[in-house]
């Protein structure tokens, strides 16, 4: 599902339905991954994005093929929404040679330069400077991509956040900082980590325009990001967008979630981005029951196919572990 070229701001009916399908696909993958992780088939520390699908899909819809994306440790949705091959993605989680990174990277280090997905990251805030660099690279190489940088609310108290926004602003670089504010850094709520209520409150410190949006409304995400990306491409410099959203599952698969109440989780489940958008499409008479089940079948097949591909991919040759520590070439 390669990223499509978007011209006008308004979306056609066909594109609206695609948003719905993309979100449903992300949800289905995360649920499958959670199940296989608990069964011990998928190794390692896995961070799911259940409940935050509208941000990934809305953002990807606003980008163009040549644009770049930098992600965090919660990268699955960003990676798939950006157009990564689901089979290579699942094979990577399974640690197979057919994975997009040869089975070496895994959930927190996904990367696919062909679709401009530069890096996920194991270090909180580690990606912010990389995104500034990608935007700097655009200027040095005289090309026209914009860089979209995801980060979580947990990163906005980190030195990398401060230095990156300052540098992007003082150099007027084409980068859009997209904060997925799900209210928690593992167990600490945002109010225990900083005294200002919103991440966006910090944008004036760097002279960067900021917007706070409903991260669970895929259209609002799309339109806001689209405007910021177009402005950056036209040389208008960086923008900070804070998308209020919520992860309805734990910080990682197996998280006790002792830090929050069921009521809070239940309340956010009523604002589920997929259910919300389904109502919008129904009102527009775009999503009949038949079409919905057709989409669900398509998605289930896609997930099963990708999972089977991963499960049945040949076992990895351990010797691959010793390869590509360095690139060939050079003197």
């Amino acid at each position, binding site marked *: 599902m390669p990223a499509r070229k978007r011209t006008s701001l308004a979306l056609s009916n066909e594109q609206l339905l695609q948003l719905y399908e993309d979100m449903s696909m992300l949800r289905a993958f995360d649920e499958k991954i959670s199940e296989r992780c608990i069964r011990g088939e998928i190794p390692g520390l896995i961070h799911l994005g259940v409940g935050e699908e509208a941000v990934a899909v809305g953002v990807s819809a606003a980008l163009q093929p040549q644009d*770049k994306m*930098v992600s965090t440790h919660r990268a699955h949705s960003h990676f798939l929404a950006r157009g990564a091959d689901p089979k290579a993605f699942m094979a990577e989680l399974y640690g197979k040679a057919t994975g997009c*990174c*040869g*089975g*070496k*990277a895994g959930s927190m*280090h996904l*990367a*696919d*330069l062909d679709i401009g997905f*530069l*890096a996920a*990251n*194991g*270090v909180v805030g*580690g990606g*912010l*400077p*990389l*995104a*500034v*660099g*990608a*935007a*700097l*690279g*655009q*200027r*040095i*190489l005289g090309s026209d*991509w914009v*860089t979209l940088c995801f980060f979580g609310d947990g990163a906005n108290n980190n*030195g*990398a956040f*401060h*230095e*990156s926004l*300052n*540098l992007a602003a*003082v*150099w007027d670089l084409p980068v859009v900082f997209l904060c997925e504010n799900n209210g928690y850094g593992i167990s600490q709520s945002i109010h225990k980590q900083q005294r200002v209520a919103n991440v966006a409150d910090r944008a004036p410190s760097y002279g960067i325009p900021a917007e706070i949006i409903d991260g669970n409304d895929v259209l609002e995400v799309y339109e806001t990001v689209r405007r910021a990306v177009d402005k950056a491409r036209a040389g208008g410099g960086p923008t900070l967008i804070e998308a209020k959203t919520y992860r309805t599952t734990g910080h990682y698969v197996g998280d006790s979630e002792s830090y929050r109440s069921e009521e809070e989780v239940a309340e956010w489940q009523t604002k589920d981005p997929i259910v919300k958008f389904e109502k919008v499409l129904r009102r527009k008479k775009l999503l009949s029951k038949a079409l919905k089940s057709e989409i669900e079948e398509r998605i289930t097949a896609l997930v099963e196919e990708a999972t089977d591909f991963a499960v049945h991919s040949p076992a990895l040759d351990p010797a*691959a572990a010793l*390869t*590509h*520590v*360095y*690139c*060939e*070439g*050079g*003197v």
Partner: protein
Amino acid sequence: MARMSYAEALNEAHCIAMRDDSRVFTLGEDIGEYGGIYRVTKGLQAEFGEQRVLDTPISEIAITGAAVGAALVGSRPILEIGFVDFVGTCWDQVFNQAAKFSYMTDGRASVPLVIRMACGAGLGYGVHHSQSLEAWFTHVPGLKVVMPATPADAKGLMLAAIDDPNPVVFLEHKFLYEVKDEVPDGRYTVPLGKARVAREGGDVTIVSWSGAVPWALKAAEQAAAEGIECEVLDLRSLVPLDEDAIVASVEKTGRLIVCHEACTTGGFGAEVVARVVARAFDFLDSEPLRVAAPDIPVPNSLALEAVYLGTRERLLEAVRGIVS
């Protein structure tokens, strides 16, 4: 050939690389009109403009990460971090980000980046401007580490480092910046991973690099007067390490001294000794010695700093000792 200083040779390497390839650019604190702390980037901004010679704010995390990100998307940055002592501030970007992209993407991505830092003591700059921390970088798979001792090597190795698709840590000793010597004209490269025999000799092998090479040559001269012929090896690059050259020399002399400026414990000298003992054990006539700084922070006053730099004087004693 032209006679120029180590700093001027590095400056020339920058000019050649930036003229030849528009993807090459440089960034760092005070490197524009100011020309960098040691004038290595003098005049570059005038020739290549502010868009390719970028003065940055004091934010090592952001500028190092930005250099890595820019390299990821195909440009070829040369980052100046004033002193190696500051690398702690952006260590995550070097250790966890720059060094691992090639591996983590199974060779699909590369980070062609040169990170330049000044190292070494001797100018009374004190605790936070005089350290030698190469042993940190050499322990990180994915990084290459280069430490030239002469102007000619500085130019050749810089051009090779810029061409290299991997992140290269390029450490320049402060004391060497003003050293003048003959430097070939035009573009040439010195291969990474090839040591240089700075002086032939059959009795003792002295392995050294960067600021310690002049000490080794001086000690060898003094020893020669006493009939002891030392072979001085200048490693030039620590990673990749020219292990064969070291072993070949030890097989000839049977005695090994490793001399470096950094603190002894945990210094790069330990790795050199460990490899020689593993590969050339039977050739060793006596225990391999490490002559390096005591394990202390670098004191500020020149009088006390001389204790940290006492390696110079102790090297000759070590040569006499190992021969007897």
